[in-house]
């Protein structure tokens, strides 16, 4: 940033523990929110809204969920997509079985269902750690995918296993245009991101990070391992569940177990690795990166007027992903968010090196 916080003194602990302590940052975020809430729904093209921004926001929410569990509480999970699937199918079934249920309530209940399932699959985390826990959550991924394809009840015995999402309505307003879908998604994601940030800076966030950094010491200073870990699983899965419901209802318009396969879990995991493990901002940066990279590559392909085949581009995407993941793991394990922080620190003293 080409601004400094000089002259901005904090005179209370409340001001010191605020999310944005610098006036310029507050201004920037206010402007960004105004742009997102007021300007974009009116001016953005349908493609920008439905093709880029909605997937970006929904995947950010899923990344946020995984970041709570993996980035803050340090519990590695490969089951994010499974919890998204639970959210999507639960929301669908709540709306189907209880006619007249409001959409937002159904999404909330879908998230709660995902949270319950998350807690169940989080129980092994009390005994096992690291890679072994990752494998246990992988079991969740395969098991849940199997349940939704095997038992017809969840898909209301639809022959293809794919169900069309019912029309959506919030407070009597039909959610049928890209702009209204975008605004619904944006509102939910913005509120949940704020809630995640608040939890991260309060005692529950500190308890999660304590368990992540040194679990023995955390227990010795009085943090109950069982409750704290399970709460991380519950809240993380709630976020993933809501993201899954939005993914199915708002983005795809269909509820389909295939949309929440292992590939999706890895995609969300890559987002937090590239974006920044243990960072709210990182969840958004990672999602933006992973949503935008294929689009940029596509544009690149068009620029060469077919000189590069689409197949090659698809392969190039995989190669770039792989390369970047390795790059981030070696060079900057805290991802884009950390790079951004370093850049800010450097610019703060610029043009001096220290």
């Amino acid at each position, binding site marked *: 940033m080409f601004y400094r916080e000089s002259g901005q003194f904090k005179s*209370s*602990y*409340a001001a*010191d*523990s605020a999310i944005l302590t610098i006036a310029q940052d507050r201004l920037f975020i206010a402007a960004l929110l105004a742009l997102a809430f007021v300007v974009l729904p009116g001016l953005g093209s349908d493609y920008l809204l439905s093709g880029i921004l909605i997937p970006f926001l929904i995947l950010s929410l899923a990344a946020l969920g995984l970041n709570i569990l993996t980035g803050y509480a340090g519990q590695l999970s490969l089951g994010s997509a499974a919890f998204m699937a639970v959210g999507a199918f639960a929301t669908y079934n709540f709306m189907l079985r209880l006619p007249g249920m409001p959409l937002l309530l159904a999404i909330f209940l879908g998230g709660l269902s995902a949270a319950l399932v998350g807690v169940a699959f989080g129980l092994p985390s009390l005994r096992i750690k690291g890679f072994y826990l990752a494998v246990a959550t992988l079991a969740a991924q395969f098991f849940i995918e199997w349940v939704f394809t095997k038992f017809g009840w969840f898909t209301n015995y639809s022959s293809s296993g794919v169900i069309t999402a019912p029309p959506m309505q919030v407070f009597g307003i039909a959610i049928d245009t890209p702009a209204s879908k975008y605004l619904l998604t944006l509102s939910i994601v913005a509120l949940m991101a704020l*809630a*995640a940030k*608040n*939890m991260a*800076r*309060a*005692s*529950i*966030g*500190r*308890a999660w*990070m*304590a368990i*992540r*950094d*040194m679990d*023995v*010491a*955390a*227990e*010795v*200073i*009085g*943090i*109950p*391992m069982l409750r704290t870990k399970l*709460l991380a699983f519950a*809240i993380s899965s709630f976020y993933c569940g809501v993201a899954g419901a939005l993914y199915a209802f708002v983005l795809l318009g269909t509820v389909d177990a295939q949309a929440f396969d292992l590939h999706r879990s890895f995609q969300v995991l890559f987002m937090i690795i590239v974006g920044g493990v*243990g960072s709210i901002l990182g969840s958004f940066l990672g999602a933006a990166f992973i949503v935008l990279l294929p689009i940029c590559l596509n544009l690149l392909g068009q620029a060469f007027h077919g000189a590069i085949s689409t197949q090659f581009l698809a392969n190039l995407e995989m190669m770039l992903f792989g390369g970047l993941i390795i790059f981030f793991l070696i060079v900057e394990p805290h991802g884009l968010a950390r790079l951004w922080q370093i850049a800010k620190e450097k610019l703060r003293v610029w043009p001096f090196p220290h």
Partner: protein
Amino acid sequence: MNPHRKIGDVILQAEAISLSFGGVKALTNISLEVREHEVLSIIGPNGAGKSSMLNVINGVYHPQQGRVIYRGEARSKMRPHEAARQGIARTFQNIALFKGMSVLDNIMTGRNLKMRSNFIQQALYWGRTQREEIANREQVEKIIDFLEIQHIRKTPVGRLPYGLQKRVELARALAAEPTLLLLDEPMAGMNVEEKQDMCRFILDVNDEFGTTIVLIEHDMGVVMDISDRVVVLDYGKKIGDGTPDEIRGNADVIAAYLGTSH
């Protein structure tokens, strides 16, 4: 020594503790008492079972035999977080700070037990959560002042030199306002100046807050200076228990440390 400080009754009693790991006997039939407001040192050669004793006291290890009576309440199996709830705090031999967090957050985590707001209130960061955060921050700032670490408040602990990390760990333990503070080699690897600072802090904590302190230390000069009582362990057995002067003259202790001529 401060004449106003009065050593009170026994607050913690270990009765005939035996602890073994497979065939290795870490502690054999050890009994000891800790009195309120005193500074008790546990000394002994490497592998004598000093750290195991602390781990038994705060519930990290569960002894096969014997029991610990803390404030009149006997317990055989207790989880460390329950010990913390009852006012037992500790530091570790190898620094066990939360590396990814700032000094302030580390110390604030020490006060997590004092916070009662649930996660929904915290997600909203309104009302109770905000009041609690500020009230606890004020307490934490007092400890930061007390240990003279104001200048590193916002620094990630990983970037601090060893001596300061030890001090932050003490701060985190103090943040819980413990009745009984267990310090596992608080001065290991420090230079003379840092040791002097740490001794001053330990005595000040004991004086000002009346905290009972059990510490493990290898520096005999420090131990003899600041302890009210010394317990000596060797090969998992207690070989001495008394005032520093008594320990200095104890033949078994001298033999354990210096060896005997045969």
